[in-house]
């Protein structure tokens, strides 16, 4: 097959839309493409550690089936033949789904998550399941039972979390795109740390059926991709009402690729003063403000506004998410599936031994916090209070959206830190979520795009937060930024 420009070594560096063109024009075959990614994983994953499970030969058979469809000139969905991977908290039938926990180390789901079925319906090829913080609790992927994923830009540093494997794999060409999940920033922060595009859609935009639940009112699945066009393509594939998820929104989603317009003239953007004052690393602040200036040069109007309620976002988030987690993780009892302790005296002891042995330290910490917040005597002071603060946070955003088309700012107060640096101080780790949690609390869409580097050549991500179901405006602004810069084209040397 004549291809002239691209060769095997560079296939894994291309975007989804570039690969789709090559597959459609028959310059590239699905089997060859899948093999290129498998070779890349084989060559580099011992260094990066993105994957918990890599698909076996069955994936090449699937690739062959997809190629046969293309050969028969059947209609090709936008993601057809594209090799991808998903975070290991999304159920894949017949393929282990561990949530990076001892508790589910041997769990093989008998069904697919809705998003998996949607990707299969587009004939995407599943390369494997990606590493994460255990049960999605963490911001560095240091809480995985299996391994530590490394940041491809500097392997002594964290990739972020909890979708660390998802971000790292896309950053270093181990998958053309990935799915992650975001409860308090778990797609956006690793996207920022690894220099890729990451989106948390509006709550309810993507079905949670088959996503192992952490905090049911906060969790959302979303794409991690190389550029904004790819993000729109994946978003098109995964959004939509699902009768199997009673919290999925019964709305019509637009074609998100129609938002990919290089024009932001007249858009009004707000940047919370609190996001760029205390606590943010000076170099990160500089890069973010330069990115905002770029948007202004491209015709958008940007101003600072006061957002004092943000100071309360972290305590509200950790109370709500831990309370919901303590409830959701009550199902892990060693009875019907998953880990069961070997030594126990009676039923109560079976539960306690199983859960104490099966869960890691951070998970137990959050279950304890959540149980405390919900227990009799404390419920009003903690959980109910947090839910009232949630209303205030949502109001703060609604007020801002009365003036601005979207809100902008940093994704994290720092770039990727060294492995081991924060793991002993849970509260310090939690404070890293200061810019991301409020979007989950308010149910708003958040998009992160690479916008520069610090003096250690570590990526910085720009975060855009929008009105409910207004992903289109975020994509439009991000696309415009991308068309006028080159940060998204840079790759780590690994």
């Amino acid at each position, binding site marked *: 097959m004549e291809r002239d420009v691209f060769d095997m070594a560079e296939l894994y560096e291309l975007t989804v839309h570039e690969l789709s063109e090559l597959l459609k024009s028959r310059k590239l075959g699905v089997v060859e493409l899948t093999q290129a990614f498998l070779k890349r994983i084989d060559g580099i994953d011992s260094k990066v550690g993105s994957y918990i499970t890599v698909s076996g030969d069955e994936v090449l058979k699937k690739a062959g089936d997809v190629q046969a469809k293309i050969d028969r000139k059947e209609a090709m969905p936008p993601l057809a033949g594209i090799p991808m991977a998903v975070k290991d908290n999304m159920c894949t039938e017949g393929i282990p789904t561990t949530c990076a926990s001892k508790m589910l180390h*041997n769990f093989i789901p008998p069904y697919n998550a809705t998003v998996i079925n949607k990707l299969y319906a587009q004939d995407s090829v599943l390369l494997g399941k990606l590493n994460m913080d255990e049960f999605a609790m963490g911001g560095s992927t240091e809480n995985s039972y299996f391994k530590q994923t490394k940041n491809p830009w500097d392997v002594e540093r964290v990739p972020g979390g909890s979708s660390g494997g998802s971000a790292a794999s896309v950053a270093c060409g181990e998958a053309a795109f990935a799915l992650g999940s975001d409860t308090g920033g778990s797609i956006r922060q690793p996207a920022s740390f690894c220099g890729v595009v990451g989106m948390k859609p509006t709550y309810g935009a993507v079905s949670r059926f088959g996503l192992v639940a952490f905090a049911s009112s906060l969790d959302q699945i979303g794409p991690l991709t190389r550029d904004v066009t790819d993000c729109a393509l994946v978003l098109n594939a995964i959004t939509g009402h699902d009768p199997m998820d009673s919290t999925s929104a019964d709305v019509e989603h637009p074609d998100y690729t129609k938002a990919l317009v290089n024009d932001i003239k007249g858009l009004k953007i707000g940047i919370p003063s609190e996001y760029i004052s205390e606590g943010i690393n000076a170099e990160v602040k500089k890069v973010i403000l330069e990115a905002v200036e770029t948007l202004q040069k491209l015709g958008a109007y940007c101003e600072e506004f006061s957002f004092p309620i943000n100071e309360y976002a972290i*305590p509200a988030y950790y109370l709500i998410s831990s309370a919901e987690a303590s409830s959701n993780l009550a199902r892990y009892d060693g009875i019907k599936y998953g880990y069961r302790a070997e030594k126990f005296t009676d039923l109560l002891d079976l539960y306690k031994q199983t859960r104490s042995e099966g869960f890691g330290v951070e998970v137990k910490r959050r*279950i304890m916090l959540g149980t405390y917040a919900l227990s009799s005597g404390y419920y009003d002071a903690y959980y109910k209070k947090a839910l009232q603060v949630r209303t205030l946070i949502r109001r703060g955003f609604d007020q801002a959206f009365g003036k601005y088309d979207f809100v902008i700012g940093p994704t994290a107060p720092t770039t990727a830190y060294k492995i081991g640096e924060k793991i002993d101080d849970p509260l310090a780790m939690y404070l890293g979520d200061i810019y991301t949690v409020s979007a989950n609390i308010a149910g708003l869409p958040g998009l992160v795009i690479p916008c520069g580097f610090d003096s250690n050549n570590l990526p910085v991500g720009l975060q855009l937060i929008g009105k409910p179901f207004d992903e289109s405006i975020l994509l439009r602004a991000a696309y415009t930024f991308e068309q006028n810069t080159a940060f998204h084209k840079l790759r780590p040397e690994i």
Partner: protein
Amino acid sequence: MKVTRETIEHVANLARLNISEQEKEKITLEMENIINYMDKLNELDTTGIKAMEHVIPMKNVLREDKVEKSFDREKILANAPLHDNGFFKVPKVVE
């Protein structure tokens, strides 16, 4: 708010978790630190503010009371730590 050893033991029991004697002191301090930080929320006056449990205003999402296909017993038992003759095997519950 002060978090005592007794609080930790009570919460651990509710959460069906074992905390070893060595771990108890560390966890008590950790929890107290975190809870004290959470007390920050008391700075806000939330009188009359509704508690928002869900961000989308939805009520009673129902479906038709129709029997749909479930899973085969084999599939359901496939992940069981212990099973016997079509049942999950568990320790004695009733004395």
